[in-house]
């Protein structure tokens, strides 16, 4: 039975790796900013705090997730992204310029930089959505694709709100709707884009990579509907200043707790208990998500400000944990897959492309970063330690990625071709 899929659908390795290689660069840049200005970064709504937040969610998290989307769409969507190399080049360039402009605009001020950021970030994100979203409709459909749709739609709306806010910052003129726009912007960005895409990926990879029992079909079918409905209603409530908006946070929080519990259960009860650093990252990630949710819930009750910082830092670290864990799986796979496709039949086995010791060191640095940054909310010196650990972590990630590419290039040139066997 021929399944009707195109057999030349994987994007070139460069299309994905250009996004992945940029992740540690922004990571080091934001670590340096935190190291030099820990107090400012910890002050809510401080320009440097906003610069660091956007370097993290755009430069690290979104950069990695868009790279992964280029790969995922071709495998899961069944319809390849057209002209993947050229489109990746354009999107990556615009995104990078946009993130640098936005961070610079927050850090150094200047109306023009906000406009440049809005143009470049808005166009890169909306172009991405316009490119990939149509491919997610009309062909094969499964729960992960539904999650990818919701994530991309949320990212687009987040970007539109972001453009409006950048224009407000550029003109130093804020409408009466500013608070509603800002809350909608970060709710859609954090939950609709980041959270949803991670859940969609989990539905696919947890059972595939780790041979676990599948998530319940009911959960998979309804999770994205409930997130979409809650986010939509939350935005409506915010714009019309209706009471009890926290109800939607409660629904989303309950869904995320459900995700944490079901994922933890599957990882705990997996059939083969092979030591794999990516599982450690998933474990750390879901614990950090739980910390984030608990801190947010506690803040809603107590209004104790540091809890907001804890919640935001833990959420960012949750996303980073999943990204680092998945990069450790995706990058060796990409190297092996593209070498094997090119007829290199002595391609190195995947577990040798990023050695276990280096993967474990990366995880240790991630743990040190997490403890230090979360503790740093209460003890400033720890925040500085966290910045140093994060810089080391991102430097090692960069080293791992560069080495994987070196292995790829060397094998492509010197490897034994299939026809030589």
């Amino acid at each position, binding site marked *: *039975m*021929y*399944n009707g*899929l195109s*057999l*030349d*659908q*994987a994007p070139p390795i460069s299309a994905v790796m250009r996004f992945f290689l940029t992740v540690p660069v922004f990571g080091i840049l934001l670590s340096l900013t935190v190291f030099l200005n820990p107090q400012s970064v910890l002050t809510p709504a401080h320009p440097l705090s906003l610069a660091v937040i956007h370097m993290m969610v755009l430069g690290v998290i979104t950069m990695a997730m868009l790279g992964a989307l280029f790969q995922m769409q071709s*495998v899961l969507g069944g319809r390849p992204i057209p002209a993947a190399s050229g489109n990746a080049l354009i999107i990556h360039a615009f995104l990078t310029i946009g993130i640098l402009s936005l961070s610079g605009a927050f850090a150094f001020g200047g109306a023009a930089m906000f406009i440049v950021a809005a143009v470049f970030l808005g166009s890169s994100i909306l172009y991405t959505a316009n490119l990939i979203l149509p491919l997610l409709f009309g062909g094969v459909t499964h729960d992960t694709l539904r999650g990818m749709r919701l994530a991309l739609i949320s990212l687009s709306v987040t970007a539109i709100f972001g453009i409006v806010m950048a224009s407000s910052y550029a003109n130093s003129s804020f409408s009466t709707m500013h608070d509603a726009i800002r809350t909608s912007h970060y709710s859609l960005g954090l939950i609709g884009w980041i959270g949803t895409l991670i859940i969609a990926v989990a539905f696919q990879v947890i059972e*595939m*990579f*780790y*041979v676990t029992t*599948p998530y319940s079909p009911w959960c998979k079918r309804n999770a994205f509907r409930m997130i979409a409905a809650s986010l939509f209603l939350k935005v409506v409530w915010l714009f019309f200043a209706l009471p009890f908006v926290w109800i939607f946070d409660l629904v989303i929080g309950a869904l995320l707790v459900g995700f944490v519990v079901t994922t933890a259960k599957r990882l705990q009860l997996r*059939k*083969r208990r*092979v030591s*794999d650093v990516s599982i450690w990252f998933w474990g750390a990630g879901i614990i950090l998500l739980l910390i984030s949710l608990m801190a947010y819930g506690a803040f809603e009750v107590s209004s104790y400000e540091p809890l907001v910082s804890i919640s935001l830092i833990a959420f960012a670290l949750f996303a980073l944990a999943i990204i680092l864990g998945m990069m450790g*799986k995706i990058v*060796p*796979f990409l190297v*092996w*897959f593209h070498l*094997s*496709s*090119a*007829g290199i*039949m002595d391609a190195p*086995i*995947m577990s040798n492309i990023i050695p276990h010791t280096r993967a474990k060191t990366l995880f240790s640095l991630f743990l040190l970063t997490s403890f230090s940054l979360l503790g740093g909310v209460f003890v400033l010196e720890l925040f500085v330690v966290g910045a140093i650990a994060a810089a080391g972590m991102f430097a090692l990630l960069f080293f791992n990625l560069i080495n994987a590419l070196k292995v790829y290039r060397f094998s492509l040139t010197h490897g034994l071709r*299939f026809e030589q*066997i």
Partner: protein
Amino acid sequence: MILLDTRELDHPVPLEMAVNAFKKLSGDEIVHMIHRREPIPLFEIIVKNGGRYLSVMEREDLWHIYLTRSSAVKLEHDHV
């Protein structure tokens, strides 16, 4: 016929095993891989290296994949 039952193995071991088995094939030999999912990336590797494949779903979590390098051998599934 080389039989590979990879249903209980973590990703990416099944893919590596299938490609290793494929490159050792000679003449009209066939690899019969039993897997819990359809290994779509594997097909691209096989076709790009002059091979052919047949993918048959028995259940949503039970797939039979047949790989060969021979252009003469007829790929068919007789286990369902």
